[in-house]
């Protein structure tokens, strides 16, 4: 007879890991297919419509890329905080504040050229988003308040601040009563790349990703951040300034989410309105975790999850599947991958029973 016991794996897995993750995603797809079936749709048709809608045409792929931009920026921010084991769930609120900051610049100083507008909007978004991220960091350090709940509450508060502004002081006189600001002047709008629908926000993503990669690999602070996240005791032994690292990582984290808000307001909507909040900040958490916090993989996974959103829109159109189907799939994928990680970290050992 044998007892089956579980042991921690010492070696790292190569391709087996890919296999395990693929299996996990397959499980998630299976569950989702079941839900489609439950709703009276053919699962095969549904999933193929999803894929086709997401990646089936150049227009669809463009759409995925456009949606991937804010997701990528938010996820990059989330990853910086997660690296230090700070659970920043507040990308959604930091995104809102970034959009608010950029909009303030855009509607307060209209008419300037984009060489003036875009950088100052970026600076405003960086500051607003960043400071919104610093609040939970300070509360964590000073009052030992749980950052998960603080960031979440700040999300709700930020969205309500945004609502207040677009329903109140910032409401455009010619919006026929709809809650929205006036359209940004052309200088405040991020242009499109050539003949495509893609905007230059894509460039911000590329540069940000590169900057973060360089930050973690080639700067002292990036290194200290990474090392403190790995082993807090070692950080103490090596005398890293932990408090300062927490503040900086949350500042950056919020700032990137803020930029995402700026890109959405400027390039996609050309104004601020409540529909800007579509949950990119929450998707970003899924993206960052799936990508194991690596800026390059975040690129891939934000593209894939943007694809999920676009695909679900197609499903909505063709089969009247509710939009929430996308959230369900996001949740399922995250859960199955989490469970699958077990097989990466542990192995089963057969132990002879005497």
């Amino acid at each position: 007879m044998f007892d089956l016991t579980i042991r921690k794996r010492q070696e790292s897995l190569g391709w087996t890991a890919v296999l395990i993750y693929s299996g996990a995603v397959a499980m998630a797809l299976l569950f989702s297919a079941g839900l489609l079936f439950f709703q009276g749709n053919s699962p095969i048709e549904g999933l193929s419509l999803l894929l086709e809608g997401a990646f089936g045409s150049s227009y669809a792929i463009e759409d995925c890329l456009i949606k991937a931009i804010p997701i990528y920026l938010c996820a990059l921010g989330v990853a910086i905080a997660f690296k230090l084991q700070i659970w920043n769930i507040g990308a959604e609120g930091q995104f809102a504040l970034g959009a608010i900051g950029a909009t303030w610049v855009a509607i307060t100083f209209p008419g300037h050229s984009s060489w003036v507008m875009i950088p100052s909007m970026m600076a405003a978004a960086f500051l607003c988003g960043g400071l919104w991220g610093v609040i939970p960091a300070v509360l964590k350090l000073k009052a030992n308040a749980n950052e998960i709940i603080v960031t979440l509450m700040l999300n709700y508060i930020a969205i309500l601040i945004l609502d207040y502004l677009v329903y109140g002081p910032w409401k455009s006189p010619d919006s026929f009563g709809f809650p929205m600001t006036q359209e940004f002047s052309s200088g405040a709008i991020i242009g499109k790349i050539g003949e495509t629908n893609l905007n230059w926000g894509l460039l911000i993503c590329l540069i940000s990703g590169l900057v973060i990669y360089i930050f973690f690999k080639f700067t002292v602070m990036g290194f200290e951040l990474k090392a403190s996240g790995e082993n807090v005791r070692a950080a103490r032994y090596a005398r890293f300034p932990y408090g300062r690292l927490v503040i900086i990582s949350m500042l950056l984290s919020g700032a990137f989410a803020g930029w995402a808000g700026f890109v959405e307001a400027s390039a996609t909507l050309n104004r601020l309105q409540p529909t800007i909040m579509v949950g990119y900040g929450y998707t970003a958490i899924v993206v960052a975790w799936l990508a194991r916090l690596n800026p390059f993989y975040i690129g891939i996974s934000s593209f894939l999850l943007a694809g999920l959103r676009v695909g679900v829109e197609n499903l909505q159109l063709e089969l009247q599947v509710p939009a929430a189907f996308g959230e369900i799939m996001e949740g399922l994928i995250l859960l199955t991958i989490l469970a699958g990680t077990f097989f990466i970290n542990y192995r089963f050992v057969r132990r002879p029973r005497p």
Partner: protein
Amino acid sequence: MKQPADIVIALEGISKSFGKVHANKDICLTIRKGTVKALLGENGAGKSTLMSILAGRLQPDSGSITVDGTPTHFSSAKEAIDVGIGMVYQHFKLVESMTVAENVFLGQEGGRMLKPRAMETRVRELANAYNLDIDPAATVADLSMGEKQRVEILKLLLRKSRILIFDEPTAVLTPQEGDELFKALSFMADQGKSIVFISHKLGEVMRVADEVAILRKGEIIEEKSISEVTSKDDLARMMVGKETFLSVVKNKVEGGELVLDVKGLDGNGLKGISLNLRRGEILGIVGVAGNGQKPLVETICGLQAPEKGEITILGKSWKSFFSRRKNQDTLSYIPEDRIGLATCPSMNLSDNFLLTTRKGFKRGPWLRRKRVESESQNVVDRFSVLPGHISAQARHLSGGNLQKLVLGREFFRNPGLIVAEQPTQGLDIATAKAIWDHLVTARESAGILLVTGDLNEAFSLSDRVAVMFEGEIVDLFEVTDMEKRGRIGLMMAGAA
């Protein structure tokens, strides 16, 4: 002297290894009714492994356990508990937020519903029966260490355990609490319980034990009745091992300026410590673990502030030395905990190299990666750290290679003061020899404080040796003083 009583438990030929390390080799041990048996050995000698096997938490690779004459096999802690073996661990297994009574009854509640009053009464009765002073309604978190230990004992008594194993029970107690514990142990033995007492402190073993077994490097070296022990010194020597003759070539280094000056350091478990160290010198701090070495090292290395007394490091006061990051390049601390404290297990070797060393690798906010990589590769080569490439993760390194990496990293900065804590513990002879050579070489430009429990190491490397006992330096002498070397066992036992 009591008559030899019935044998309750007999261990025969017990062996257990973890990977390549033989924690226990062919161990035979008998435990008698109504007897206090001391298991004496240094840290890492295999005492805890042996007791975990007896308590059913670990399964031996080979060998047999006989209880009351019947061969038995424990596949879980529960089975050992059921035959009456109970253990008081060094780190108490108590739920801090619960009351004493709740802790005592946890796992043996005797029914679906709890009756707090009745539980408290039962605990009080039990405590009175064994002269253990405790308030059953108190919350464990509010108790002193001695009281917590009594809760652990009560847990075993409620279970009617016949064999009570104590793992280093006095490590966390004040001397008075220790005295009370010894009284309780004797009392329980008189009631017919068998006590196993794991310790590395000679004095208390002599006081409380009826029999003693000495464990070294996983083997029982000696097992005898306490009345047959003629001198503590013998026990000490048996425990730490004979001096093996691994010669270290030490060329003479001219004594330089003072790198460390400690005056009247008090508090945190230290009592009036004064010592100094010059460049070019190795000062060995020996003593049985837990006699104040840890707080001394942590204070000197800036991990805790001195309560009373003065410390001067490389000419600066403690406070001004640790207020500037740059100063810290001149101090190297090689901690005992290589994997949890000195390194980040899942980072690669060059990142781990960078952990404490910034000298020349920083330009403004930038890291000079190329330089880090080439220098860390250099260190890896020079200290022959295997596997020889810097992309390996620290957690994949063996203890010896990890230690060489830490040593290489800490010496790279050319520090003026090096604090090395148990630098060769758990390492094989060849690696230990290599590390000794490195330490001796580093001495040429630094003063080294070597904290060790290994007398052989202390004598081979040090220029002077300080003996610590209960937070004090009992004696400090030149390593050439053979008369004092002869008495070191007694000093370590606090008997000189």
